[in-house]
């Protein structure tokens, strides 16, 4: 089995990786200084010039970029290459609904697809495999990224895009897909649907690459069980390129960041100060090989930890933990911090499907906290007492986890909108700003 897509890069010595990063960072800062007046102005305001950046040790001197900068510069303000050299855009709405548009040269797309090819190879993908890409195609980076990676590996690629679940299952079984790429919530849904259609035995899947959404270890076990696969995590964001910024290997113990393309830092989100490896903080990326849309010190808002310990798989690139939440995903309800991932963990533990919707509102200056949950068949009974007992157990388990009481509403199966792209897990009706 081919284990690595680019072994000389993926298993390079730490000294080699550092040398690449030093050289590429210096070049990149010069490129941005020369071509992006907006970032040059930011550097000037901080009193930094390209001459001050001699290696990665000087990275902390550079100003940050945030989503606010992207909004301000929309659409062309951060473009570092003439439009005639750009061949593609991808776009995301982000969590706040404001569009982000990222540009790519052919070189950028090649490197991005290499990253995705590394991810597919890391889960055991070879040219013998049939890779079903059920991420959305189009502006969303999920479909195009994994599609490109799958081509590079040489898999037979099924460009399914998301939705049309019956057709997904038909192709999956008829063509014998061995690798599935989609959002974790859609993977869970496909697993459920396959079970309902009695197709579970006909699946040939061995691995899945799931990202673009927060998901828990419980959900991973759930998906692995329902589809009979090993489920791997992949991480990325449109601003930095798309999926494949980091990916999980066979060890399933953190995601390797492609450090020949991206430098990762962890900072204190309040002060901007760089934190040592192993400390929890906000993840920041610098693109050192991208031409058209090279983000320098872009703040992801993902709260995360880096791990430089040697990985059993032989790759030398640093690993990031699954993000523990987003600084802008966290809800403060009745003064308590609530992460949707905590609610998901409780649902799975109590035997409910991980399909839920949190509704937060404020009535007479008091927060209301409601969770819509789908009633699973196994829990239904003809007596009110049995059903109410399950409901009460769930409410108690949620209170134990969160410290506050949620009002649980049991819904009919599949009545909560499923995500074919990203799930809408939180509806916050409070007008706090």
């Amino acid at each position, binding site marked *: 089995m081919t284990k690595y897509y680019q072994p000389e890069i993926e298993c390079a010595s730490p000294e080699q990786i550092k040398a690449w990063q030093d050289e590429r960072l210096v070049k990149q800062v010069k490129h941005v200084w020369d071509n992006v007046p907006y970032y040059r102005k930011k550097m000037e305001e901080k009193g930094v010039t390209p001459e001050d950046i001699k290696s990665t040790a000087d990275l902390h001197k550079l100003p940050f970029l945030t989503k606010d900068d992207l909004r301000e510069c929309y659409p062309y303000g951060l473009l570092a290459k003439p439009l005639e050299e750009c061949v593609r855009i991808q776009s995301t709405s982000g969590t706040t609904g404001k569009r982000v548009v990222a540009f790519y040269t052919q070189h950028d797309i090649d490197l991005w697809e290499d990253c995705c090819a590394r991810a597919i190879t890391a889960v055991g993908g070879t040219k013998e495999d049939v890779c079903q890409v059920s991420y959305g195609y189009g502006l969303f980076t999920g479909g195009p990224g994994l599609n490109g990676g799958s081509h590079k590996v040489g898999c037979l690629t099924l460009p399914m895009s998301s939705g049309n679940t019956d057709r997904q299952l038909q192709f999956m079984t008829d063509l014998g897909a061995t690798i599935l790429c989609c959002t974790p919530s859609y993977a869970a849904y496909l697993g459920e649907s396959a079970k309902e259609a009695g197709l579970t035995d006909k699946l040939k899947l061995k691995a899945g690459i799931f990202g673009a959404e927060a998901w828990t270890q419980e959900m991973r076990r759930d998906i692995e069980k329902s589809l009979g696969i090993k489920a791997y995590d992949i991480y990325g964001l449109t601003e930095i390129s798309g999926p494949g910024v980091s990916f999980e290997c066979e060890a399933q113990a953190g995601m390797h960041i492609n450090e020949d393309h991206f430098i990762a830092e962890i900072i204190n989100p309040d002060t901007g100060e760089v934190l040592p490896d192993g400390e929890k903080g906000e993840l920041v990326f610098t693109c050192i090989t991208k031409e058209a849309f090279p983000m320098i010190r872009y703040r992801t808002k993902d709260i995360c930890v880096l791990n430089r310990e040697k990985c059993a798989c032989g790759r030398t690139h640093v690993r990031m933990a699954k993000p523990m939440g987003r600084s802008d995903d966290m809800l403060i309800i009745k003064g308590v911090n609530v992460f949707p991932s905590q609610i998901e963990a409780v649902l799975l533990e109590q035997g409910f499907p991980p399909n839920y919707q949190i509704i937060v509102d404020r009535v007479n200056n008091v927060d209301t906290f409601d969770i819509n949950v789908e009633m*699973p*068949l196994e829990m239904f009974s*003809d*007596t*009110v007492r049995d059903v109410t007992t399950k409901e009460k157990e769930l409410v108690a388990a949620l209170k134990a986890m969160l410290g506050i009481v949620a009002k649980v509403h*049991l819904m*009919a*199966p*599949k009545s909560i909108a499923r995500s074919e792209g990203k799930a809408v897990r939180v509806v916050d009706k409070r007008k706090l700003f």
Partner: protein
Amino acid sequence: MSVRQISVFVENRVGLLSEVTTLMSDNEVNLRALSIADTNEFGILRIIVEDVDAAAAILRKHGYIYTITNVLAVSMRDEAGGLAEILQVLAKAKISLEYAYAFLLNKPGVACLIIRVADNNAAEEVLAEAGIKIATQDELF
């Protein structure tokens, strides 16, 4: 000699009960009897039909959550004291009811009481000893 009852999970939402009953009517399923248990959050619709498996298949196809439970259909005199007589027998035997509902049959003077108890056999035994008849699914139609 129990009968099979279908219980359907219904969300507490306007029109949902009508959706289920319309589905049954569109598929020409005649409901012999029904009862609804409701809480603030959800409801349970319990129905007695002639062809249980056909009705269940329709519900499954349309994504409803349901369960089939064996309940007792107790023949009851349609006159004052008919219900009391049955309940006294059960109470005396210390058999508690989870729920019960009654309906009239197409025969004059005869009603039917559906009861859900923890142990059907025990209930059947004491009722038989008291000379009270238990109906089969077929006898209800």
